[in-house]
């Protein structure tokens, strides 16, 4: 009797959760329209920005289903960093900063989203320079809709204020450059 009840309960709960899992629409990040940018202060005088040219990832987005259906997974090829100055790029790629010879990838995998269709707070694990840290940052939807070529797209933007030395990147660039704004600006196409 007890087992029958348990089976029924399991069946009911499965039938409730399964549609949620299957209904969440999955999207693939469009690398040609997605940008991971980083920006920090230069001597407190101005700002320096750069970007990673090679990123990949997937996201699940289905606001009708609810918060738990939203997730994102991004992989960033750190060897593709570009600040439009070859000497600086060379230094940034070295062990003083990104150490790309050892850590050629940085990943972010969301574990939780709270918010609605227009945006909210994304929580997840950022793995960078071999350090995995639980982080959260605000994210907002830029827009969504059909594209002219038969696909359906959605775009998000969010900025995480990173303390460099939390990930072991402690090359002294002065007190104004301890924090780096890392901006994820992604466009994704719905999987068919």
């Amino acid at each position: 009797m007890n087992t029958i009840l348990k089976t029924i309960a399991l069946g009911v709960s499965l039938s409730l959760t399964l549609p949620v899992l299957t209904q969440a629409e999955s999207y693939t990040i469009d690398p040609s329209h997605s940008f991971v940018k980083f920006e920090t202060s230069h001597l407190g005088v101005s700002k320096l920005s750069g970007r990673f040219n090679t990123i990949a990832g997937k996201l699940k987005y289905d606001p009708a289903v609810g918060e738990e259906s939203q997730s994102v997974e991004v992989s960033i090829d750190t060897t593709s960093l570009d600040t439009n100055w070859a000497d600086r790029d060379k230094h940034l790629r070295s062990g003083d900063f990104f150490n790309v010879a050892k850590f050629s990838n940085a990943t972010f995998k969301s574990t939780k989203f709270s918010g609605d269709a227009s945006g909210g707070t994304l929580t997840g694990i950022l793995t960078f320079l071999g350090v995995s840290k639980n982080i959260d940052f605000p994210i907002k939807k830029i827009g969504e809709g059909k594209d002219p070529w038969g696909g359906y797209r959605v775009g998000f933007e969010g900025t995480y204020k990173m303390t460099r030395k939390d990930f072991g990147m402690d090359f002294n660039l002065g007190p104004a450059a301890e924090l780096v704004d890392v901006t994820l600006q992604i466009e994704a196409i719905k999987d068919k």
Partner: protein
Amino acid sequence: MTSEIKKKSFSFSTKLLHWLIAGHMIGLIVSGWWIVELSFYSSWYYLAPTLHKSFGVMVFLMGLILLLNKFRKRPPPLESHTKLEKLASKFAHLLLFASLITIPVSGYIFTTFTGQNVSMFNTFDIPAVLVTSEKIRDLAIEFHIYVSYGIAVVVFVHAGGALKHHLLDKDRTLRRMLW
């Protein structure tokens, strides 16, 4: 100095270039080793790389002329040199000349990769004209580092050989590069 000895000496331009290049090479290898360790707040942070590149261009040009001299007016090896010595010195010279051309070129490749020019002593620019791929850029960086340190060893062997001839064999090998 008899004319016979003079004939076996290197030409004035070769001697001048040889010693200028020797000074440049030592300075460039040492400064390269030092530059990568400079802190952001060092007053040399900008100046040192500019000077390193400028002298690098100079050594490249001098290397080309010295290479021309080598084919144009090079005295034969001394009769007292053994076959092995001739072969070893030939090999060392080949490596030194190859590095004189390829180390500056590799530096030029990665420093101009995103299109920035090479500033010559902050007075004029050498334009960025080589378009390469990221793979070549990465290879050029590795090459520039490891071949430079490698050639430092060859420089020691080369100088050690000259000193051996001067101090132990007491022949004109070193002297004919001096006067």
